[in-house]
């Protein structure tokens, strides 16, 4: 019985992953990340992703405050934030977030405040979406781990 549940959960997880890939939310980098997870670091992916969430939220906050500022002119700082966010996003394979970051950066390079604001909205939306989905994924995985004892998703 337990084994069956684990399989179902695993199928769910695969379906969810497939969906995320199909929508272009994640790319191969996430798979690579998963491959890095092994016995020596059983929670590697979730650890990294959590760091990512933490960092990104900070960065998003900073971006929003920068943009909300009335005498806003510090595009350079904004670009640094964006580069950071972009780097970490590509590291975990968050493709859509990264693409939005690229657009955001392009807008900031043109000192286009309206464009920046729009991009920020989209970015926040994408970020939330990604966060929700990944949370869901990890939840399933936790359930699966609980269900299957010590088994890890990808075979090495």
């Amino acid at each position, binding site marked *: 019985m337990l084994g069956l549940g684990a399989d179902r959960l695993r199928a769910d997880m695969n379906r969810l992953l497939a969906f995320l890939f199909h929508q272009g939310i994640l790319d191969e980098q996430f798979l690579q990340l998963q491959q*890095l997870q092994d016995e020596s*670091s059983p929670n590697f992916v979730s650890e*990294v992703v959590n760091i990512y969430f933490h*960092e990104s939220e900070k960065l998003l906050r900073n971006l929003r405050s920068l943009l909300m500022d009335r005498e806003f002119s510090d595009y350079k700082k904004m670009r640094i934030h964006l580069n950071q966010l972009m*780097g*970490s996003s*590509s*590291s*975990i394979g968050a493709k859509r977030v990264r693409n939005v970051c690229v657009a955001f950066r392009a807008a900031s390079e043109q000192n286009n405040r309206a464009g920046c604001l729009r991009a920020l909205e989209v970015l926040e939306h994408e970020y939330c979406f990604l966060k929700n989905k990944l949370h869901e994924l990890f939840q399933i995985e936790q359930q699966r781990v609980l269900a299957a004892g010590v088994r890890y998703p990808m075979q090495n």
Partner: protein
Amino acid sequence: MSCSSGTGNFVKLSRLLGEIHKMSMNGKLSGPNCRLSANFRLKKAKETMHGSNSFRKWKRNLLFLWLLGFVFTGIIWFFLSFNSVASERNEKSPDSCEEKARILLQNFNVSKNQFHALASFFYESDQNISQRSALGVQSKDCCQNLSFCMVKGCLLLLVGVLLSCKIPGVCLKCWKNRKNEPVPLQPVAQQLQLLLQQKQQQQAQSSPKGAGKWRKKLLIVFVLLGMLTSFWLFWHLNQKIILRREETLANMCDERARMLQDQFNVSMNHVHALAILVSTFHHGKHPSAINQKTFGEYTERTAFERPLTSGVAYALKVLHSEREQFEKQHGWTIKKMETEDQTLVQDCLTENLDPAPVKDEYAPVIFSQETVSHIVSIDMMSGKEDRENILRARATGKGVLTSPFKLLKFNHLGVVLTFAVYNKDLHPDATPEQRTEATVGYLGASYDVPSLVEKLLQQLASNQTIVVNVYDTTNASAPISMYGTDVTDTGLLHVSSLDFGDPLRKHEMHCRFKQKPPLPWMAINASVGVLVITLLVGHIFHAAICRIAKVENDYREMMELKARAEAADVAKSQFLATVSHEIRTPMNGVLGMLKMLMDADLDAIQRDYAETAHNSGKDLISLINEVLDQAKIESGRLELEDVPFDLRSLLDNVLSLSSDKSNDKGIELAVYVSNRVPEVVVGDPGRFRQIITNLVGNSIKFTQDKGHIFVSVHLVDEVKGTFDVGDKVLQQGLNLVQDTSSKTYNTLSGFPVVERWRSWENFKILNDKDTMEDPEKIKLLVTVEDTGVGIRLDAQSRIFTPFVQADSSTSRHYGGTGIGLSISKHLVELMHGKIGFVSEPGIGSTFSFTGAFGKGEVSSPDAKWKQCDPVVPEFQGLRALIIDNRSIRAEVTRYHLRRLGISLDIASSMESACTYLSSTCGTSEFAHLAMILIDKDVWDQETVLHLRTLLKEHGQNGRLDVSTNLPKIFLLGTSMSPVERSKLKTAGFVDNVLMKPLRLSVLIACFQEALGNGRKDQVHRKKTSTLGSLLREKRILVVDDNKVNRRVAEGALKKYGAIVSCVERGQDALDKLKPPHDFDACFMDIQMPEMDGFEATRQIRSAETEVNKKLASGEASIEMYGNVSHWHVPILAMTADVIQATNEECLKFGMDDYVSKPFEEEQLYSAVARFFESG
């Protein structure tokens, strides 16, 4: 004439123009055929477009002007020469006239005596004749000159036209020569397009229509000028003709007048002489020596001297007082002249006349010439005219003329000349009274003017052409006609005055041409000629202009179309590239997910489905790649790589891919590589494989359930030397020797094939025996032979065209896009080779291609090659026997076994195999015989059983371990179901069944299994462990400001067993990496706040060099720095965007290499391997 210098100038001018023209042509007509040159030209044109445009126009106009100038100069020259001839003539004629006059005058002045006069007369007439002939000659000359000039003019025009035609031709040639210079520029499609657009715009700006209009205007002006010239010419020539006519008339008239005058004068002189004679012999003698008889005789005999007089008479001056005495003396009375009936003079006899009335004095005629004897005794004073005449004559002492009147007796107009006879010599200044006093008589002579003139005119030339009238114009208001009839006015009239020696009387001669002047044909001809020439030239130029305009129009249209076509081409390529790329991206997703799916726990069927989907996806990707290849080839961007590869294993791979399909169809598939082909060649394996796959794929597609597909590879050199072909397969290919009586052919499957050699007979590389061979290069000849449906003859010419198949129905039957052969052709051409084929419908096709490859080192690191390497030695030295009835097939098997080091004997049938076995029994050969391969075609269960027992016997004889060391028996089959195979195996007939196509890996696996010393293949996935071993226990510092990245990098590196430390900032890295430290490597992010990767690296390097300096100089001991003599920690940059510039920058700042973020295993391995492999 200055003609030669003129033409010299023309030549110079034309040369100059020719050069200019050349340049202009350069700009204008460059070929739209060659894209390279077009590109080059466009660049040039871009630079000098505006300048050259106007320049070009100007030059064209100049050419036109030159032509016009040429034509006009020619015309003018022609007329000048014509005029000069005419003036020459004009000059001549007055000259000759003057001369003539002089001679005449001289002659007449001298001719006091008659003979002289006569002689001169004859001379004159002679002269006349000679003149006449001279005139004729002159006019002939003139005509010749004229025609010569015409011819010259026409020639000139012709030369001009020809030159103007030639020059562009010459220019074109020159220009072509120039064009042929190599233009080494690579066309970049977009640039080209841009340039084309620019060019188009500029063309539009230059508006060639304006130029055309301008040219047309010029042409109209030219034609108008030509017409004006012709009119002027007509007028000019006509004037000339009229003038000449007038001159002729004047000349003739003057001539006649002078002659008339001279003759008259001669006669007058004679009459004068007669008067003196009378005075001397009649009055000076007593008695008189003259009576009527002597006078009459004398005058009669000297009448020839006075050809113009009709008669002479002498009248005595008789006063009234002396009348009676006189009458008595002569015996007749003085009679009165009857003026009233002068018309009937002849009838009136002297006797009938009345006696003269009483007057003061009388002048009765006493002597007279016989012709006028009827006037004897008539008183001359009684006639009014005569009386006046007599009075005037005796007063002046000179000859006096009457006005013309009808002569007595003659019904003619005439004048009477009267001389007075004096009784003494008078002083020339004597007064009229003295003269009257001295007068004793009067001598009169009547001149018959009409006959006089008539006679005169008859002696002159061309008396037919002119009409002469002579008038007495003493009374200017009423001239009296003395000669000639009234003629109608014919336009021209010349009047010459006549002087007959009587100052009171005035006479004139009026001359007219009899006919009206003829039409001036010459002028008409000349002007019409010029007009026609002008119109013709105009027409030619008009046609040329139209043509130019048309060509220009066409050219522009073509350029536009070309631009559009090229733009479309570029767009197509871009579209293809984009679309292919866009398709590939999601396809990669699909393939990735399928791969994942296959990794998941699936049952067999699900896995099969997934694999099928995966394979289809791969096929789709390869198709897309093909399309992309075509696009790339079309834009010339495809480049071949040069890597060493094993040709044989590559062919094995290709065959294994195709084997499924061929087995399904029951087609035999075989590959053969000549043993002279090196094991490893350098080239582009991917592209080579693509060509072979294409050809084999086509062959499979078009071969139906029978026959074979045979791929063979030879060196080109092998084919060249056809006389000593050692290779049996090639022999078979070259001379397909088969006797038609035996129904099978010596081919792989026994089906007939086309003559293979014909597919490569056109290759230059083969026929060219003298080509310098690059020793580093080898040329391969690959042939793919099949027994398919063949290609229809009419379709054979177009099968290499992209997207064209031999038959439009082909795609319906066999599928495919028809792109494969086109790509193959391009690829072969990129390999400096050629592709050709020969095909016969119903028999099959053979495709051949050549390609140049480099010779590879056998030890080249090629993974696939090495993979098989350890397996091969265990078969080395073994022997095998193949039983096959087809030698070619046996050769193919031999080739495969030779690769494993197994030597092969061939037996053509089971029986011969048995005899072979018995003959070799007991020898070492038999000891080494490890396997017997039997082809399916000769398979026979009984014989096999027989063979087995035979083997067993021999084995026991040879004391071999029967169970293990007996030769194994394999069956070679093309298409057999698994059931069949297992049945044969379990029945113990054979040890195993080998499925064709033979492949090295299959052979190895099969033999290993059969020979019992099979090992598990453990040669894959070494790399992971390699990377792990490389990085194991290495201390690595990761510098990245991004927490996530840091964590990921750490995780990745830890996975390979590295000990990883992380720092967040460049400054921290500096502290950590300050020597001495124990890090083996450092991964450094480039983009970091505060201190970026480059800066950090720079500082680390500078710190290291400082330490190294200290160490080198001995300032610091090695122990202080951890026993390391030279500090240099490998620093690898981590960067998200890997582009060349970044790479170079990395190296510039002292980094050792770079890896892209996120980590990729391969790249990481190759980067890290550099540093840790040696250590």
